[in-house]
C-alpha cells in the first residue's frame, strides 16, 4: 500500500537523454543532480524558497510534459518536474549552455577581480562556476567596460561585513534572515546595478544566526569580521566536529591551520541542525587560546604556599595523596562541558577511586531541594532515551501538532531547536506554547503563544494545560522542559503528569553540551553509568561486576549545592572540580569569604582549561583539553550520540579521562581506562541498565512564593550570548550581545510610574543593578532581566530567577 503510494508520487523525466524518476514537485535543478548533472546556480539553496533571481541555472525544456516546449530557457531552480518532461542542460543543449555562459558573463562584469585577496577565493561558487560554465576572456574588460564600485566594506552586524561590489544580489542572505532565522533586518535597497544588501539606519543585523549568511553567500560579499583576511581556504584543514556550546549537538566543521582553529562552519546534518548553527557555535572558539590557558600542571608549594609548575607524575602523586588523606569526604563537580567519555571517567573515578556518590555535573541553581526532584526526573524519565528508542527528535518537532515549552527559551538556550520550531510552524502551522513569564521575540518568531506564568508558578501552569482546550496536547505533541525548571518545586513532576494524561511526549533540554552525557554516565549522586540507580542494589552489583570491583557504594551522595554547603561547613575535606565556572555555582558572583576559607582549608584538585577562581584556590591544577584537542562524544538533548575526532594536537593538556586515570593509578585504585577511546569502549561494554528503572514520586508541590506588596518576581535566564567564558576573545561576537534591559508589562510600568527607556534600579537579595526599562509581553507582577549580560550580571548582582525584587525609577 505504502509502496504503491510512493510510486504514484514519482514523476519520470528525461534529463540529457537519461530517464530519472523523482518525487513529484522536485525542482528540475535537483532532479538533474540525481543523474549527476550539476547545473550552475547561485540564488538556489535547498533550504530556502526558490527565487529565480540569478538566472544562472537556465536549461532548455523542449517538452514540458504536455508535448509543448518552452520557447525560452527556463530557470531550473523554480521549475518543478512534470511527467514526461524533457530537460536539456548545458551538457547537451547549446541553447542552455549559451544562456548560462551569458548570465555568467553578466555576473562577472561588475564583480571585482580581487579573488587573490578575497576570503572566498578558493572555495567560491562564483569562482568555481565561472571556471566550469564561463568564458576565459572578458569581453567587458576588452571593450573598456567600467565596473561599478562601492566603498568597502560596511558592517551589517558587528561580526558580519559586506563588500557590496562583490555581491551578486542572489538574496540568499536576505532570504535566510527572513525565512530561516526570522530576523529580516537585512534587505535589498536601491535598484539596478546599484541594488545592494542594506540595513535600516542604526538597525544592525542583530541575529543569533547571522553567521550563516556568511557561509551561504556564494561570493565573497559577506565575510566574518574575525576571519577576514586571516587565511586561505586551501591552507586550511577541515575536521568534522560537534558544537560544544549547547546541548543541540549541531554538526560543525572546524577549519584549522598549523594547530590553530581559524574558523568554524555549520556542518550538514539534516537530522540535527540541517545547515545552520548559532553565532555562538560559529564564532566562540577563541577562548582556549587566550593567555590564561593552562599549559602545565601546578601544585601548591608546601613552603611558599604558592602554586608552582609541576611535572605530571608529581601532580598525580600530590593529588592522590591529598585524596587519600581526605578519606571519602570528597565532593566532585565535573561541570557540564565534558564529553561522555570524560564524564564516564569522572563518574567511575568517584565510585572506584574516591568511593563516593558525592558527584553532580549540575553547576547551576538547583532550588530548595538541592536538585533532588530533577535528579529523580532524569533517572526515571530522561536517561537512556535516544532516537529510535522512543525519545523525541528534531524530526518529531518538525511534525508535531503542538509543542509546549516550559522553563526553556529555545532561541537563547537551544538555537537549533528554535530553528526547527520555526520551520515546523512555517511549514505546517504547528503551534508553539510557552509556559514562561515573557513572550520573547523568539516566541514571536515561531508564532508562539505565551501562557503567562509568574516564575515559581510553572507547576500549576503545567497542571492547568491539561484542561486548556486551546493547547490541546495529544500523542503528536511534544513537551520540552528546560533545566531551569529544576528550581521550581513540583514543576518537573507536573510535566511528567501532563505528558502522561495527554499522551504528549516529553523531553528535557539542558544547556551545556556535556549535560546529557553526564546523565548517561552517572555524574549524579543518585545515578550510576548506564542509568543504574544508586539506590538499586542489583544495579550496583551489576556495575561492580562490570568494573571488576568488590562493590559500588550505595551511600547517599551530595548534590552540587550540597557539596558546596558541606565544604563551607567543613563536612568535606576535598573537592575535585572540573569545567565549572565558579560564577555559575556560587551565588555571589564568585567565591564568598567563608567558602574561600573553606576551599583554602580543603584539598582542591582543579581540572581546567583556563585559570579560574577555582584554579587559583586549588592545591593541584591539571590542564585539561578543550573539545577541540581531544576525541570524544557529546550526547545531545535527544540522546543522540554525537562523536567527534580530535582536531588539534596540544600535548600540554590531556583529556579529563587521562588526568583522572593518572590520579587513580597513583592512588592505587585504577579506573581502568586512560583514553577517550577506551572509555567509550567501556561505556558500550557496561551498557544500559536493563533492570527496573528508578521511579519518580511526585514531590509535595509547594505553593509559589508570593512577593510582598511593592515587589516583583524576577524572571531571568542566560541569553545565548552573554558573559560566558567560552565566548571570551571574540570582540565582534561580544559586540552583538543584546543590550540588557529590565522588561515589564505596560501595566506594571504604569503602576510603577515609569516610562519606557527610564533607567531603573533593580534590587534583589544580592544587591542592585541599574538598567533601562522596556515594555514587553510580560506576566503581571514580573520583571525580566538577563541573568548574565556582560557588565550587568543580574544573577550575581541582583539574585536568581524567582527572587522577589523591586524596581525603582531613576533618570532617563
Amino acid at each position, binding site marked *: 500500500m505504502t509502496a504503491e503510494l510512493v510510486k504514484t508520487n514519482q514523476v519520470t523525466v528525461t534529463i540529457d537523454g537519461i530517464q530519472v524518476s523523482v518525487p513529484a514537485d522536485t525542482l528540475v535543478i535537483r532532479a538533474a543532480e540525481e543523474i549527476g548533472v550539476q547545473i550552475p546556480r547561485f540564488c538556489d539553496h535547498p533550504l530556502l524558497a*526558490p*527565487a*529565480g*533571481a*540569478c*538566472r*544562472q541555472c*537556465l536549461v532548455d525544456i523542449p517538452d514540458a510534459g504536455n508535448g509543448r516546449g518552452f*520557447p*525560452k*530557457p527556463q530557470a531550473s531552480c*523554480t521549475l518543478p518536474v512534470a511527467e514526461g518532461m524533457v530537460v536539456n542542460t548545458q551538457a547537451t543543449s547549446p541553447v542552455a549552455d*549559451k*544562456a548560462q555562459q*551569458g*548570465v555568467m*558573463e*553578466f*555576473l562577472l*562584469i*561588475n564583480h571585482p577581480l580581487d579573488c587573490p585577496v578575497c576570503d572566498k577565493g578558493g572555495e567560491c561558487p562564483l569562482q568555481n562556476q565561472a571556471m566550469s560554465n564561463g568564458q576565459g576572456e572578458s*569581453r*567587458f574588460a576588452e*571593450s*573598456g*567596460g*567600467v565596473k*561599478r564600485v562601492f566603498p568597502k566594506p560596511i558592517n551589517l552586524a558587528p561580526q558580519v561585513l559586506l563588500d557590496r561590489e562583490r555581491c*551578486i*544580489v542572489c538574496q540568499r542572505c536576505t532570504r535566510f534572515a527572513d525565512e530561516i532565522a526570522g530576523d529580516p533586518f537585512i*534587505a*535589498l535597497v*536601491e*535598484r*539596478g*546595478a*546599484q*541594488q545592494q544588501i542594506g540595513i535600516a539606519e542604526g538597525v544592525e543585523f542583530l541575529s543569533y544566526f547571522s553567521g550563516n549568511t556568511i557561509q551561504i553567500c556564494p561570493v565573497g560579499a559577506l565575510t566574518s569580521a574575525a576571519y577576514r583576511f586571516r587565511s586561505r581556504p586551501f591552507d586550511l584543514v577541515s575536521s568534522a566536529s560537534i558544537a560544544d556550546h549547547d546541548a543541540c549537538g549541531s554538526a560543525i566543521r572546524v577549519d584549522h591551520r598549523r594547530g590553530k582553529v581559524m574558523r568554524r562552519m555549520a556542518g550538514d546534518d539534516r537530522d540535527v541542525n540541517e545547515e545552520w548553527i548559532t553565532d555562538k557555535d560559529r564564532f566562540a572558539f577563541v577562548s582556549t587560546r587566550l593567555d590564561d590557558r593552562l599549559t602545565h600542571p601546578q601544585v601548591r608549594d608546601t613552603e611558599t604556599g604558592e602554586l608552582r609548575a609541576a611535572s605530571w607524575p608529581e601532580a598525580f602523586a600530590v593529588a592522590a595523596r591529598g585524596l587519600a588523606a581526605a578519606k571519602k569526604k570528597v565532593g566532585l563537580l565535573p561541570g557540564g562541558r565534558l564529553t561522555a567519555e570524560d564524564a564516564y571517567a569522572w563518574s567511575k573515578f568517584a565510585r572506584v577511586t574516591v568511593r563516593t556518590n558525592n558527584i553532580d555535573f549540575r553547576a547551576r541553581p538547583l532550588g530548595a531541594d538541592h536538585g533532588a526532584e530533577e535528579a529523580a526526573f532524569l533517572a526515571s524519565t530522561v536517561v537512556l532515551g535516544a532516537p529510535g528508542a522512543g525519545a523525541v527528535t528534531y524530526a518529531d518537532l518538525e511534525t508535531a501538532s503542538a509543542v509546549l515549552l516550559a522553563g526553556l527559551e529555545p532561541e537563547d538556550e537551544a538555537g537549533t531547536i528554535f530553528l526547527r520550531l520555526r520551520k515546523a510552524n512555517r511549514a505546517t502551522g504547528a503551534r508553539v506554547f510557552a509556559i514562561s513569564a515573557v513572550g520573547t521575540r523568539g516566541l514571536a518568531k515561531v508564532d508562539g503563544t505565551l501562557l503567562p506564568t509568574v516564575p515559581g508558578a510553572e507547576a500549576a501552569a503545567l497542571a492547568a494545560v491539561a484542561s486548556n482546550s486551546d493547547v490541546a496536547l495529544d500523542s503528536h505533541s511534544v513537551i520540552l522542559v528546560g533545566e531551569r525548571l529544576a528550581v521550581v518545586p513540583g514543576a518537573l513532576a507536573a510535566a511528567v503528569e501532563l505528558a502522561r494524561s495527554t499522551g504528549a511526549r516529553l523531553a528535557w533540554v539542558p544547556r551545556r553540551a556535556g549535560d546529557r552525557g553526564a546523565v548517561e554516565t552517572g555524574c549524579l549522586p543518585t545515578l550510576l553509568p548506564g542509568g543504574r540507580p544508586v539506590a538499586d542494589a542489583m544495579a550496583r552489583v551489576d556495575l561492580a561486576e562490570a568494573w571488576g570491583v568488590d562493590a559500588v557504594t550505595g551511600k547517599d551522595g551530595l548534590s552540587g549545592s550540597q557539596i558546596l554547603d558541606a565544604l563551607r561547613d567543613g563536612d568535606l575535606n576535598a573537592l575535585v572540580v572540573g569545567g565549572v565556572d565558579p560564577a555559575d555555582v556560587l551565588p555571589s558572583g564568585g567565591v564568598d569569604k567563608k567558602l574561600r576559607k573553606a576551599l583554602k582549608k580543603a584539598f582542591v584538585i582543579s581540572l581546567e582549561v583556563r585559570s579560574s577562581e577555582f584554579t587559583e584556590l586549588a592545591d593541584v591544577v591539571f590542564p585539561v583539553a578543550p573539545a577541540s584537542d581531544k576525541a570524544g562524544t557529546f550526547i545531545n538533548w535527544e540522546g543522540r550520540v554525537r562523536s567527534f575526532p580530535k582536531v588539534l594536537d596540544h600535548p600540554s593538556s590531556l583529556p579529563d579521562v587521562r588526568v583522572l586515570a593518572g590520579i587513580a593509578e597513583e592512588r592505587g585504585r585504577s579506573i581502568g581506562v586512560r583514553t577517550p577511546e577506551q572509555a567509550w569502549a567501556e561505556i558500550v561494554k557496561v551498557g544500559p541498565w536493563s533492570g527496573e528503572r528508578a521511579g519518580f514520586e511526585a514531590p509535595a508541590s509547594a505553593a509559589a512564593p508570593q512577593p510582598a506588596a511593592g515587589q516583583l518576581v524576577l524572571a531571568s535566564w542566560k541569553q545565548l550570548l552573554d558573559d560566558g567564558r567560552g565566548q571570551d576573545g571574540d570582540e565582534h561576537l561580544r559586540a552583538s550581545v543584546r543590550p540588557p534591559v529590565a522588561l515589564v508589562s505596560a501595566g506594571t510600568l504604569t503602576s510603577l510610574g515609569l516610562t519606557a527607556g527610564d533607567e531603573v534600579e533593580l534590587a534583589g537579595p544580592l544587591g542592585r543593578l541599574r538598567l533601562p526599562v522596556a515594555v514587553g509581553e510580560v506576566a503581571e507582577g514580573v520583571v525580566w532581566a538577563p541573568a548574565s549580560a556582560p557588565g550587568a550580571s543580574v544573577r550575581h548582582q541582583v539574585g536568581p530567577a524567582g527572587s522577589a525584587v523591586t524596581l525603582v525609577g531613576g533618570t532617563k
Partner: protein
Amino acid sequence: MTDVLTPVLTDDWDAAQSWKLATYESRGGYGALKKALGMNQDDIITAVKDSGLRGRGGAGFPTGMKWSFIPQDNPKPKYLVVNADESEPGTCKDIPLMMATPHTLVEGVAISSYAIRANKAFIYIRGEVLHVIRRVQAAVAEAYEAGHLGKNIHGSGYDLDIVVHAGAGAYICGEETALLEGLEGRRGQPRLRPPFPAVAGLYASPTVINNVESIASVPSIIAHGAEWFASMGTEKSKGYGIFSLSGHVANPCQYEAPLGITLRKLIELAGGIRAGHELKFWTPGGSSTPLLTADHLDIPLDFEGVSGAGSMLGTRALQIFDETTCVVRAVLRWTEFYKHESCGKCTPCREGTWWLTQTLTRLEKGQGTPGDLDLLLDQCENILGRSFCALGDGATSPISSSIQYFREEYLAHLEHGGCPFDPLASTAFAIEGANA
C-alpha cells in the same frame, strides 16, 4: 477624414469639465453600471469575452478570459487591481484618459469588480502624476457620493470600495506582480509565477489586474453590447483603441480608432510628418517594442499585424522620428532609461543594461569597433528570454531592431568618429533649414 475615428473613450474629452460626474452622467455615464447590476455576473464576463476585448496594456491577453480564471470557489476575497502605472517611454493614453474622464474608469472598475465578485478594487497610479491621482481621487469621491460606489450600490446589494493608490516612481511597478508587491507595501520587484495572480495575487487572494484602457472599455461593451464592440477592429483584434502619436508629426495627439488602422492613416490624421521632413523610424507600442521604418507604414496596427512585422502592438504609443534623428542616440537614451529602471532582481537585466549602455555610449561617440554591433546583439540575445520579467526583454528591443534596420548608421558613427547628426536638428525648436 474623421470617419475612420471611433471616439468612445475619448468622446467626452472635449466636453466642458469633462472630469466631473455631472458631465459624465449627462452623457449617459453610469448607465452601463446600472444595466450591469441587473445582469448575471457570469453574463458580464461572457459579454466581455464575446466582445473580443484584449488587454490594452500591451500584452493583449483576452480580458474576459482573464476574468474567468478567477476561482470563484476560493473562499478568499477577490480583488480587481487597475494598472495605471503608465511609465513606458512614449505611452500616454491612460494618463490623459484619467485626466479627462476619470469616471469612465471608475464605472469600468465598478462593472468589472461586480463581474468578478470583488468588493474591493485598487487603482495603482504612477506616483509622478499627482494631478491625475487627484482627479481620480476626486472622481471616486464623487462616485461614492452619488451611490455608484460603496454599500448596496443602487439597491443591488453589491458593495464596492475603491482605493486609489499612488506608486512611488518605479517603472518596474507596471509589471503586474511587482505592482502587487508595491501595493502590499513591499519592494517593487516581480514575483515568481506560478502562483499566478488569478489564484494568489494581492494578499495571496485571487486578483485580476487590468490596464486602465481595458477597464474603461468595459462600460461601452455593456452599454452597446459585445457585438457592437466586435464589429470594430480586425478578426482577432476587436474594438477600438487609443493611438498616441508623438514626435515628429505636425499634430501629436491621441487618436481613437479601430484596431487595424495603419500608421499611414494616422500620420495623415496628425497632419503629416513635420514640414520638410520624412519618416525615418517609429515605435508601434512604446520603447519596448522593436522599432519599425517607413517600409511598415501600411501594416495594420493590430496585434497580429504588428507581430507579423517583427514587433508588437504594445500600448499603441507611436513615437515618430524623422530623418534628423540619430537612431543610435535615440536607442542609447532608451537603454539608459532601462538601466535606470532595472529593478535589480535578475542578473541579465541588471548587469546587461549596465553593459549595453556602456557599449552604446562608446558607439555613439564613435569609439567602438564594428565588432561591437555583434557584441550588442549577443548581449541582447543573452538578455532576451533570460531575464525574470519582460522588462529585460523590452530593453533589448530597440537595440536589436535598430541594428537590424540601421546597421549602416551605427557604422557611420565609427567612420565619422562620432555622431554624424546635428542633435539640435531633431528638436522641436529647430529652425527650418538652419544648421544649429
